[in-house]
């Protein structure tokens, strides 16, 4: 299948942004979350720099609560000769045994994601982190720059954003400041799927419908991915035909009932769906304006 013209424009824009990020930073890194956006981002990065290898490592912030299928996918990728995959988990999270069932989403997210990310960036001395966030995902993201300035401590101040004109991206910073670069800013979820389909990009099996063990809880379906799952009284796992539109920590990721087992079927489903992608990400709505708050604290 040939690439629609608008995706060719977006592809060129993303490659331009990736090259600016690599050229302007001293120690860039690419955040790799194993999801579909990360798969597209990696595919674009390979195109941007070939025939040379990627000029930055990949960093996976492992919360230890990801789907097992995601970790297997990541470990397979790490075998590729052209990528260098770093993995970091917050040692305090391990020491304190932070888990989604006992501590809830706010603490879980702060320890395993925000704090862990800040540790890994500081440890690697990275002045710029490339990530796959899109502006259509969430309304505070719609207001963020493609090169987003972070103050010392990785915090984001929406009122201190730099004007971003033409194709000029500014990664110059004062000591202690860093930049997050978002090459997929102008892509929509449908663009991502259409591109995956057209380019034949490999993605985690969780995006395709399959019989999976799920529990219905608070109106959503949660997959029982391992024996750490804590059942509430009366709950039991049932096999349902489901898939995931967005993947993260399995206890916080809602499955959707679906029969889409191929990319064609997923794209067809996308064109008719009336529910937003991140509605399945339970941590987004745990507080008012919660994405903006997480970003202010240093979440990507």
């Amino acid at each position, binding site marked *: 299948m040939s690439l629609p013209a*608008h995706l*060719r424009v977006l592809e060129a824009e993303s490659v*331009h942004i990736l090259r600016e990020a690599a050229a302007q930073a001293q120690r860039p890194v690419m955040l790799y979350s194993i999801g579909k956006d990360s798969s597209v981002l990696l595919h674009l990065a390979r195109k941007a720099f070939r025939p*040379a290898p990627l000029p930055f490592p990949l960093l996976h912030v492992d919360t230890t609560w990801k789907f097992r299928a995601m970790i297997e996918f990541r470990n397979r990728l790490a075998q590729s000769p052209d990528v260098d995959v770093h993995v970091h988990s917050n040692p305090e999270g391990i020491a304190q045994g932070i888990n989604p069932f006992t501590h809830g989403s706010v603490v879980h997210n702060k320890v395993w994601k925000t704090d862990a990310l800040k540790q890994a960036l500081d440890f690697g001395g990275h002045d710029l982190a490339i990530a796959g966030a899109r502006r259509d995902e969430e309304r505070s993201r719609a207001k963020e720059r493609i090169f987003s300035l972070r103050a010392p401590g990785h915090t984001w101040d*929406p009122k201190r954003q*730099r*004007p971003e004109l033409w194709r000029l991206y500014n990664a110059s*910073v004062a000591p202690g400041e860093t930049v997050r670069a978002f090459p997929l800013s102008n892509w929509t979820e449908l663009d991502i799927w259409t591109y995956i389909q057209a380019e034949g990009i490999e993605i985690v099996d969780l995006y395709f419908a399959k019989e999976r063990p799920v529990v219905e809880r608070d109106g959503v379906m949660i997959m029982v991915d391992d024996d750490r799952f804590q059942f509430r009284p009366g709950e039991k796992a049932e096999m349902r035909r489901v898939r995931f539109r967005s993947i993260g920590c399995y206890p916080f990721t809602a499955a959707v009932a679906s029969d889409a087992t191929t990319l064609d079927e997923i794209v067809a489903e996308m064109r008719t769906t009336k*529910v937003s992608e991140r509605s399945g990400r339970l941590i987004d709505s745990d507080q008012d304006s919660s994405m903006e708050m997480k970003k202010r604290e240093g979440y990507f």
Partner: protein
Amino acid sequence: MSAPLKTSGLLRVLTCGSVDDGKSTLIGRLLFEFGAVPDDVMEALLRDSKRFGTTGDAPDYALLVDGLAAEREQGVTIDLAYRYFQTATRRYILADAPGHEQYTRNMATGASLADAAVLLIDARKGVLPQTRRHAAIAKLMGVPRVLLAINKMDLIGFDQAVFDSIAADFAAVAAQIGLEQVQSIPLCARDGDNITMPGERMGWYRGPSLLAALEACEPASAAPDAPARLPVQLVQRPDADSRYYLGSLAGGTLRVGDTVSNVVAGVDAKVARIILPQGEAERAEAGDAVTVALDREIDVSRGDVLATAPLPILADTISASVVWMVDAPLERGRAFTLALGTARVTGTVTAILGKLDIATLTDVPTATLAVNEIGRIEISLAQPLVCEPYTTSRDLGGFLLLDRLGGETMGAGMVAEAVSSRRHLKWQALDVTPAVRAASKAQKPVVLWFTGLPASGKSTIANLVERRLVALGRHTMLLDGDNVRHGLNRDLGFGEADRVENIRRVAEVSHLFLEAGLIVIAAFISPYRTDRDLARQVAGEGRFLEVFVDTPVAECQRRDPKGHYAKAAAGQIRNFTGVDAPYEPPLAPELHLHTLEHAADALAEQIVDDLRMRGVIF
């Protein structure tokens, strides 16, 4: 979501106007019509509308667009937002600029890439000063097509006479500022008249709906027969034999076999390969992200432009329009890092020629530019720059002014005219080349650039190094900061522009001595990284060794052989580095000297050893 794309493409559209004009309603409508608002987002919108909204039980679309908590609570749009939707024929990117707050800065940003602008006005109010501003900025930023959406036609009884009179007023404004492609469309965004379908209540209107007018716009693109311009983002050497030049083609068409020149270095080569994201290709068009291989190795680095004939000029002075974006006013004499294409050069504002009076749309004299003002300025460049008028190329005519410390974006400019004072000068070829001169002295010419705080020990160590080299029979020249200011640079003070010029002249003089085959020892505080990078660039890669004389400021104050720190502390000297002016330490100096731990003699010896190791002396 929407139906599959038949033919496709992408259009970038700027929307501007105030909330009162019904802009959010209009955008909300467009997003709805094309299925870009999912059900759960709609539910959240209804929830927020009850809490913060101004529309009673109906959804308040402004809240859909206002993404930040502060915006929703205060009911104002603070920042530019991007929205996406897709019709049967193409994909749209809407850049939505707030009407009041920071309007110039936000609108200029949203307009910088826009193919079309929708200016929204209230039919009851007609053309307001704000409409004139929006039109002026659209013109300034080179937005090719402007649609005037005259909204709330229901509130004036769909009266054609009112519409005609507003359209005529706007046509007069457009003529005054030189906007060519404008079109007026009557709307009732709330009910959807003329948004996507003709409004039956306005049967007298024969023109297109807003959507039809947008669908008829073509994305701005450079003429395919224009000369090719490739600003180089990165140079890659995956192995010893190959070099690739990476960049986005800013204009024209580039083909395998074309002769391209690096205008800065004055060298050329033929294009051997072109690699696009989709693979190996014979040609690339404007906007493509390309990887290029040449038929031979020439001197090219990031910031250079590979170009086909006719070649662009190498400017050392530019005149430009500038949108000033920070609270501190722009004053003459201020130096910046100028970012244009992939180049970063130092520029000094030598004149503020005037500013735009938005009420009369005329040019008025001024000494400074305040935040959100638009002015005309002249900039003198410390390094030659490949650029083109903004009307020829947004990519090679649009630039940012960055703070030389910390890199904050302070303004955005558009090149009006680029001037090269060397236009009529040709380089004279000489028989005795720099290499011949150096060989006769049994040394490799280099610049040893000493940088550090005042009283850090630069001059002392530089002097010891020169004595040792002369004792070894080498040929040297020492340039010292204080001494140069007695002669060559006695016309320069300590303001920012003069500091830039001071280092520029020293860099050029060092270069002349390099050509003579000498080892140049330069000892200058040179507090700005960008200035030292300039000196490195002028000397040429491999011929510049940065020596960081690292002495803590407390120790410098204690030594203070000339009593300068004491005077600065007492307020008798201003702009003194280390007291009330900043110093940026080198990130990766070739030599890093710690003067607390080692005596000056030992450090000088270490430098001479290092020169031997590098093959500078042999």
